[in-house]
């Protein structure tokens, strides 16, 4: 092999997490009174979703604290994006990855995970993501020495990644000039982390709005209806100034609309975030609203809502 000396070109793939673009949605805000809608395009992360931030944060934290050492397997419950994040980060860093997910997760998701060499443990579809969480906990309890169980629902490194990353980027990219931050709740890591930092930096000058599905039975992948779900330990209901309840169809309509009107291809949870931003914009003239679009639409192509009329 030829020596390459001290060439330092190129970056490690882990270094590409974060620093996502902030996209303006002018056409969406066009009918509103001097409202700006801005959104972090998280599909630009290496793994294609916002979950790269939390997963990398938890894995680095595990290494720092000695809970993740060479030879251990990364284990967690995830119905998708976090799993993909663990999968590529595990591959890049040389850890095996084992994931519990509901059997109803799409074939495409499973194919992506397998491509990264993940071992998949399927749990009953009827139990949803809560069933996967229970299975992961059981596996970890049975063999705690074999696994590193980041437990994205309970691990403070999840929301810290947003406190130290996403929030700082938003403040830099807006020059601190935002009046509203809105994000949908899954593990709640994005909302809790960003909201805490914004509150710390800007006090009451920024209004913090969370979004949840309007029912335990919904089609918004990755989002949680907190009143009926296994509530994540990192969730702090005291952070939000307000919570908006989102019906699946309203979020889906926004997904179709921004694809057709803005040329931005997002997933249903991003649709929920933008639908909420739009609701806020209607009531607050002059608002500068920032939200987070967790992933792109590619992973939801087999869903039926694409073909419906808005």
């Amino acid at each position, binding site marked *: 092999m030829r020596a390459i000396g001290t060439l330092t070109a190129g970056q490690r793939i882990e270094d590409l997490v974060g620093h996502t673009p902030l996209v303006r949605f002018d056409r969406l805000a066009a009918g509103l009174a001097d409202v700006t809608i801005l959104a972090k395009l998280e599909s630009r992360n290496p793994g294609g979703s916002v979950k790269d931030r939390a997963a990398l944060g938890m894995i680095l934290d595990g290494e720092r604290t000695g809970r993740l050492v060479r030879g251990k397997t990364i284990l967690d419950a995830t119905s998708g994006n976090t799993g993909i994040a663990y999968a590529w980060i595990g591959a890049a860093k040389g850890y095996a990855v084992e994931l519990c997910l509901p059997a109803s997760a799409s074939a495409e998701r499973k194919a992506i995970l397998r491509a990264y060499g993940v071992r998949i443990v399927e749990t*009953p579809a009827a139990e*949803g993501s809560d069933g996967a969480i229970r299975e992961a906990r*059981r596996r970890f309890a*049975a063999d705690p020495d074999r696994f590193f169980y980041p437990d994205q629902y309970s691990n403070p490194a999840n929301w810290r990644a947003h406190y130290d990353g996403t929030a700082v980027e938003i403040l830099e990219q807006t020059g601190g000039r935002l009046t509203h931050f809105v994000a949908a709740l899954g593990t709640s890591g994005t909302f809790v982390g960003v909201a805490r930092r914004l509150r710390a930096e800007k006090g009451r000058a920024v209004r913090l709005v969370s979004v949840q599905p309007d*029912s*335990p039975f919904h089609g918004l992948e990755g989002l949680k209806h907190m009143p009926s779900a296994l509530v994540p330990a990192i969730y702090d209901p005291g952070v939000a100034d307000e919570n908006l309840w989102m019906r699946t169809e309203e979020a889906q309509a926004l997904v179709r609309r921004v694809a057709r009107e803005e040329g931005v291809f997002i997933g249903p949870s991003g649709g929920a975030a933008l639908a909420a931003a739009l609701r806020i914009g209607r009531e607050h003239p002059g608002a500068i609203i920032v939200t987070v679009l967790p992933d792109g639409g590619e*992973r939801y192509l087999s869903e039926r*809502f694409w073909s419906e009329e808005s």
Partner: protein
Amino acid sequence: MSQITVQIPVPLRAFAGGQAEVTAQGETAGQVLAALTARYPDLRTQLFTEGGTLRNFVNVFVGDESIHDRQGLDTPVREGQSLSLVPAIAGGAVDQGRGAGAAQGVNGKPTVARDISDVTLSQGEILRYSRHLIMPEVGLAGQKRLKAARVLCIGAGGLGSPLGMYLAAAGVGTLGLVDFDVVDYTNLHRQVIHGTKDVGRPKIASARDRIVDINPEVRVEAHEFPLSSANALDLFKDYDVIVDGTDNFPTRYLVNDACVLTGKPNVYGSIFRFDGQATVFWAGHGPCYRCLYPEPPPPGLVPSCAEGGVLGILPGIVGLIQAAETVKLILGEGEPLLGRLLLFDALRMRFRELRIKANPECPICGTERTIHELIDYEQFCGVGPVAHGPEVAADIPSVTPAELKARLDRGDGVVVLDVRNLPEWEIARIPGAKLIPLSELPARVHELSSADDIVVHCKTGVRSAQAIEFLRTAGFRKLANLAGGIDRWSTDVDPSVPRY
């Protein structure tokens, strides 16, 4: 109108009175859902749009087929079919066809199905399993699942014999066997995996030979050591299904707890005399063994097969029920014996079924768990390590068969009391002994005189020790236990007395 069972997923149960399963009538999926939402109006807005069409992320399955692939809400339903409501997750597509996880994703049926994308069947295997392959419930995918499956049999005895042979024949790819016993003549009337030529060989070696003869495609993993709290978790974690073919309570609890801690299904069977039991324990999907039996019975209360006997055919029937359940769990087909305890009575030739439920206060699978690791099961069940052999309380005087023979030959008036059961008496007896079965002793104690020197015996010395403890409370003092019972009498004194 057909009566249809509707499976309600967890997120919708709050809108259906908290129930997991309800019945409704109709001739089409739409009619069934209409009847359902008439009864539970809150479900209506969850399932339907204002325009009355099904919301786009709701998947409805009739049997294992999505109505989207058939006639939508007009899909016909038949009496006895099940209709499942499944919320879409991550793209909404439940694997179509019979791909990995399809069975589970479709009806929420628990399965241990593995990824079979890399599994292939040779032409020889296709021929061997052809009668399986032509059934849609198995098919090529199901046979591959069987091949990919890893099943652990605890014990290669009565239940382990039919289990090992039939699971091997059915094409289960990897069979683990745990046993460290040796084949004995008394095993042969029921442990049909071993032959007469195998007496004296380790059971695990004999079982492996038979399995490989039945199906050389099967990989046998031999674990020739006693299952213990130290090795169970490590051993179980690499298997998909654990089949319990053991014969004692400490191991039952050990198998159960290790299954709960590793999340594995425990296919249970037990046999005694003419009665059998079978069920599938699987914490998270149904009850575990501790939900049914929180505490073991007091030691000695429940006799073992060695003491009470067993119909030789019985483990064949019960073991094959376990084998069928194991295969179903692997295929993800049918209705597993979860939450149902099957009772079999060979004398009356009847099956009965009891509903059993997970106990929320179960110490290992309940909401407030108190057991987080494996414990000392011998202690938990109140049996010491000596309990496997003849157990004699320390303060009970004993005589050896040789000493008893000498006293009888001297004619010193010793009374020999046999506390075994009549069928045992008919097999073998000590000349001059008086038979009063242990269970009849309290009623017939007046037939004995406390003035006599009494030597009590049974088969090996356990029941006679219990008899002596009873006689002491009745005022008898001149008592001794025959060490090793009639079994040792046969080996030490009189080989013409048959051992059994």
